[in-house]
């Protein structure tokens, strides 16, 4: 949920990020999977939680 006082700013910023996303290639084969940030080897802090270890 976006705080009402920032709704206009959010709408403006959403336009910008949507325009960036629109530039991304979309013509992947249907079977082409996305990277999965929850379990990929490319994970950086995905297992991170504040004061949680191991």
């Amino acid at each position, binding site marked *: *949920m*976006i*705080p009402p*006082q*920032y709704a206009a*700013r*959010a*709408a403006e*910023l*959403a*336009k*910008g*990020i*949507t325009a*960036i*996303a629109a*530039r*991304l*290639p*979309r013509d*992947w084969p249907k079977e*082409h*999977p*996305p*990277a*999965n*940030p929850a379990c*990929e*080897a*490319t*994970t*950086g*802090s*995905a*297992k*991170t939680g*504040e*004061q*949680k*270890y*191991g």
Partner: protein
Amino acid sequence: MITPVHTYCMQSAIPTVAGALTAMAEGSTRPEDILEACLTRIAAQNGTLHAVHHLDEAGARATRDTGALAGIPWGIKDNFDVAGLPCIANSRLRAGRMATQDAPIVSMLRQTGAPLIGKLATWEYGTGTGAEHFDLPNPPARNPWDTERFTGGSSTGAGVAVATGMTLFAIGSDTTGSVRLPAAATGCCGVLMTPGVLPMEGGLPNTYSMDRPGPITWTAEDAAIVLDAMLGTQLRAAGSAGATGLRVAVVRDPGPGLPTAQAELAAAFEAGLSVLSRLGARITEAKLPWTASTCLDAARVIGAAESASIHEEELRKTPELMGAALRDKLLAGMGVSAVDYLAAQRLRRAFSDAMERFWDAHDVVLCFGTLHLPPRLGVEPESSNYTMETMLTPASLAGLPALVQCTGFSEAGLPLHWQIMTRQGNEAAMFRAAMAFEGATDWRSRRPA
């Protein structure tokens, strides 16, 4: 009134990690002498440079003097937990927060006997939209080569601390450049390892799927020494093998939507390339499977969405406590559709797969980090361009090891740099290139005065 530095010295008393270890082994200096010198430099310069946010003088003095890095003072970005010290991440959202345990990367370094001198400056939660941030609890860190200029972010204090000898090495974290940009801006070496090699646990996340910790040091050799001590690797030995026969792919063009590198960066790049060629590296021209600009687009979509997910509750409850840069990033992230997020992650998978094939013909990629010289603080669009117009995101997206090192200085005395990337698990090749270049040039003899 802040006076720009604009000066440097060639006979600095600041030792490298390698030099300090040798001097201690020979008995020509003692660990306490090195620590006192660091503390003296902090006392003299931190009031201007704002690199250290939480000093732990007592803890550093109490550190045992045994281990591979005994007597080598270090600092860590204030987004990692250190037991008994604040972990504020330069955010009003975390006022008064103290850590009760060491993050695993802190524990690893404690095992080496290196005295932790304190916690270093960061942008809020290690995030931002590019410009330097003046609305956070701490003032912005300042570049010791010119105090009117930007330090690189988000590990804003790490490069400053190392360049000035407040610490002999530092640990930062990097999502799309937050170790590499500060290294570039301050003339240091910044390193990212294969994801998972250095633990991010106990560090506050910025973008779950791309955050990585990494060392900042004065030399590539020092980075290898620190990593060897932490991980039991042999990077220093491997890096000493020279560049003969190393297959170096040169990527100059960042692709559409990004400018070409500034002229002095480009000139230093070509001069450095000649050095590597003379050292026996096999240089070829190459293109990445996707341009840096496309990688940047994907990284921005992923970063905004994941940051918004991380901070959604705080955005809803206490947005006024955030700095504008963090808040804007989260507001943008709230506008990312799931389909767009997955489009970026699909590109990421494809790019990672294509890079795997790319390495069949190449050992390392040589390219720019950012395409700009360190900008003037608070001057737009210079500040944003410095962090957003880069070739840093391909390594972020594909989880590639990467290293930024100094390639010289501009006419105005600002550090120049390049970036070396390699295949996951092939850090030895990256260090071969970096240490061979370093050994054949004398750029490491110059320090900010």
